[in-house]
C-alpha cells in the first residue's frame, strides 16, 4: 500500500512539472503568432471586430463529438456565450482542467473570454465545444453548421469541416 502511494505521488510530481513546462512552451509559441506569415489560416467568418478561423469538428464514433476554432479579435474584449448546431440539441463550451495528473472537462457557464486585440483558440486538450446527442454519424469530408453567439458582437454563422484529428499544420511548433 505504501509503495503504491509513493509511486502515485512521484508520478503526480512529474506531471505537475510537465504541465508547467508545457504551459511555458505554449506561451512562448503564442507570442510568435503575430509575426507568423508562413501559414496564415483563411478566415471563414467575421462579426464586428471578430474573425473566426479554422473551424473543424471531429468525426464521430458514437453520439459525442467536439468542435474547435480560433477567434481573433481586433476590438474590445468580448465573450463567446453559446454555440448552436443543427446536428445536436446540446452543445456546451467546455474547458479542460488538469489537477495533479487527472484531466476533467467542465462547462463554462459564463462563456469563453475573447481578449481585446487578442485571440482564443479551441483545440484538443484545451477549450472545446462539446456536442452531445449527435443525431447522425459524421465522417471525413462532411460539414457542420455552427452558430456562435458573442456577448457584444452578436451572432455569426459558419460551416466547419469534419476531420479525424487536428491538421498537422496546427501542431507545427517549430516555425
Amino acid at each position: 500500500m505504501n509503495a503504491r502511494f509513493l509511486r502515485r505521488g512521484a508520478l503526480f510530481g512529474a506531471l505537475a512539472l510537465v504541465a508547467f513546462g508545457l504551459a511555458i512552451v505554449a506561451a512562448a509559441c503564442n507570442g510568435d503568432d503575430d509575426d507568423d506569415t508562413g501559414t496564415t489560416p483563411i478566415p471563414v467568418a467575421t462579426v464586428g471586430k471578430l474573425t473566426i478561423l479554422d473551424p473543424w469538428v471531429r468525426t464521430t464514433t458514437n453520439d459525442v463529438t467536439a468542435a474547435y476554432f480560433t477567434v481573433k479579435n481586433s476590438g474590445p474584449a468580448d465573450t463567446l456565450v453559446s454555440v448552436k448546431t443543427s446536428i445536436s440539441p446540446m452543445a456546451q463550451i467546455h474547458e479542460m482542467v488538469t489537477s495533479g495528473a487527472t484531466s476533467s472537462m467542465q462547462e463554462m457557464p459564463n462563456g469563453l473570454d475573447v481578449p481585446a486585440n487578442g485571440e482564443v483558440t479551441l483545440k484538443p486538450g484545451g477549450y472545446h465545444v462539446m456536442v452531445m446527442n449527435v443525431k447522425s454519424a459524421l465522417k471525413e469530408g462532411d460539414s457542420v453548421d455552427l452558430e456562435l453567439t458573442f456577448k457584444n458582437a452578436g451572432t455569426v454563422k459558419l460551416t466547419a469541416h469534419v476531420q479525424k484529428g487536428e491538421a498537422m499544420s496546427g501542431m507545427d511548433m517549430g516555425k
Partner: protein
Amino acid sequence: MKFTVRGAVPIALLGLVAVAVVAGAIALGMAVFGGSDDGGKAEYMGAVTSRPVEMPDATLTDQDGKPFNLKQESEGYVTLLYVGYTHCPDICPTHLYNISESLKKLPKDVSSKVKVVFVTADPERDTPEVLKDYLKTFDPNFIGLTGTREQTDTFQEDLGVSVATRTDLGGGNYAVNHAAYVIAFTKDEVAYTVYPAGMGIPEWLNDLPLLVKKGFKPA
C-alpha cells in the same frame, strides 16, 4: 547537507521552489523539443517520470469478451496504455488518432512491436462490443479492456493514477474525469515516459523507435 525549515523561511523556500520549477521547465522544454544532441538522455521527447511505473498484474476483459492478462500479453512488446472512455469528446480520440497515424508512418519492424491498450474508466457504457466498434475506427489492432467497476477502479489504483470520477453534463450525459496521459511501457514492463495532452505525432514518431529498439536507460 541538512535542510531545516522553521520560522521566517517561507519566502526563501518559495524562491527555491520557483528556481526548481523553472529549472524543471527548462529541462523539460529541452526534452520536449529534443533540442539537445548529447546523444544520451535527451533523445526522448516524452515526459520522463520521476520514478518508473510498474505495469499492473491485472486480468480484464478484452474487446472480444475474452480474459486478457496485461503482463502476459505485453511480453516482448512496447505497450502504450491509456485509461479513457469512448464518450470522451476531446483527449481520448486525440491520443488514439495521433498514435494510429504515427504507427502508419513508422516502419513495420517498429509498428509490429507496439501494442496499444485502451482501458475504459466507464465500464457501464463501455462493453466489449462498444470498445471494439470504437477502437476499430482508429486501428483494428488496438486492444480495449473493460471489466466490472471494481476491476477498472482497482486497475487505476494499481497503475498509480487517480481513479476516474464523473461529472454530470445534463440530459443523461456525463463526462468521466480521468488521467489524461498515455503511459509507455517498454519491454521490461516498466514505464519511464508518459505523453500528456499536447504531445502527439512528432513525439510518437521520435519516441516509438527508441522505445522499441533501445528501451530506456536512465542517464
